[in-house]
């Protein structure tokens, strides 16, 4: 399959999927905006009304972490199932197996634009007007996509071996919720060694702090860290693609026999 064809197929499959999903709901595409708004409202109720922790912009702080993380968890959770879920197609078609994880990733990406718009709207409501610095969000989003793609490809491959791993992945994304700095600020951690370890080993910690840096503090994040992260993610992604190519027929055989 040629590269252009691969991208066309990923794009059209994702758009059709979203269209099909929207066609079943009364409010259809409106849910793309409504869902994140409802999320914000739930968090507002819990953290501002019930728990009221004193920090004036705590809700904004939370959402700048929660929304990027939500993109990660949703993509990885659904993408990890993508190979076993497409058993019917895989049994009948000799296509690159990366196709299926990428379709779910693309679906999540298309939805994420709406969610980011809600986030940006919220940032502006809190009095932070857009500056040129916001352009630095683009590399962040791209690197986060790479990170999500690496995790999803690994997840989907592992689930094709042992389906039980799905459960572990779900637990893993909950673990990520608490260790990625959605509820706490990495810059307030006193233990320097722990702080560095978190930043290095959990890319979401760095990414979330970088989003906040642009959107709340209006400062540029550590670009060297981003460059290093890009390199590592690109290398991992290339490795995964090689592995998928090598394993393509064995993946099909396993899924057909399961």
């Amino acid at each position, binding site marked *: *399959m040629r590269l*252009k*064809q691969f991208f*066309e*197929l990923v794009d*059209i*499959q994702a758009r*059709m*999927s979203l*269209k*099909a*999903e929207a*066609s*079943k709901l009364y409010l259809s595409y409106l849910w793309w905006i409504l869902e994140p708004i409802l999320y914000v409202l739930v968090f507002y109720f819990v953290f501002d009304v019930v728990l009221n922790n004193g920090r004036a912009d705590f809700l904004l702080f939370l959402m700048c972490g929660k929304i990027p993380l939500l993109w990660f968890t949703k993509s990885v959770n659904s993408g990890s199932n993508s190979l076993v879920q497409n058993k*019917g*197609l*895989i*049994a*009948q*078609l*000799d*296509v690159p197996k990366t196709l299926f994880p990428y379709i779910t990733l693309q679906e999540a990406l298309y939805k994420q634009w709406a969610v980011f718009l809600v986030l940006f709207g919220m940032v502006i409501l809190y009095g932070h007007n857009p500056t040129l610095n916001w352009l630095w969000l683009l590399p962040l989003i791209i690197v986060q996509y790479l990170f999500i793609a690496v995790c999803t490809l690994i997840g989907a491959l592992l689930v094709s071996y042992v389906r039980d791993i799905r459960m572990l992945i779900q637990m893993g994304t909950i673990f990520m919720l608490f260790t990625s700095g959605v509820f706490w600020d990495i810059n307030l951690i006193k233990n320097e060694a722990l702080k560095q370890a978190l930043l290095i080993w959990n890319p979401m910690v760095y990414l979330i702090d970088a989003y906040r840096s642009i959107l709340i503090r209006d400062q540029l994040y550590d670009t060297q860290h981003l460059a290093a992260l890009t390199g590592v993610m690109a290398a991992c992604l290339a490795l995964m693609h090689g592995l998928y190519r090598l394993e393509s*027929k*064995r993946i*099909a*055989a396993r899924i*057909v*026999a*399961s």
Partner: protein
Amino acid sequence: MSDSDIILTAQNVSLTYKTRTGWLKKFQHQALSRISFELKRGDKLGILGHNGSGKSTLLRILAGIVPPTSGRVICPNGIRRSLLTLGLGFREDLSGRDNALLSAMLQGHSNRDAKAHLSEIKEFSMLGDFFERPLFTYSSGMRARLGFSTALYSGIDILLIDEALSVGDATFRDRAKQALDKKLGGDQSLIFVSHMPGQMAALCNHVIWLQDGHVKLAGPVAEVSQQYEQQLINQP
């Protein structure tokens, strides 16, 4: 014919399934055992066998989807082979048009190519306005018509077909048969899988009879069909 006309070779193809049935419990099943044959350009090969004889599994291996446990399938570079599958990747909540587009693209057409074929598919499927409606409003016959019409538009060297002809009502069946005959004329190679010798006689010239994963008999279609039917009658 020279060797260069051989477009698909199976050499001692065997397949063993290992299925996990419980914690550390495995079930092993020899689905295919040492199957060998050659397919030349323009050949129409039938694979005949009862349910569970391994014919669909063999087709999947020949299509290059799964690897055999041992043995080899050799297909020269540039030869395109594909399973003709009815309703490949169809989704209930999308319209006939969208499904046809998706399916054609999955079979290797570019977006532009697939779109160019949509009016032909619509015309051939005789679905009329239903072409624009979601699939869950279709009857099973309409679904089969859409599936067949979509699958037919794929330009490939070796067609692999799994008992696909019994679709739709009588009128459509005739159209389907004619369209297939037209497509199969000349250089188009075919591997057709069925448990019915009748269908086989209409499409194939050479037949392999599979039983429990072994080649029971191979030869001209009339001869193999006759023995196969004989066995059907003799069975209690």
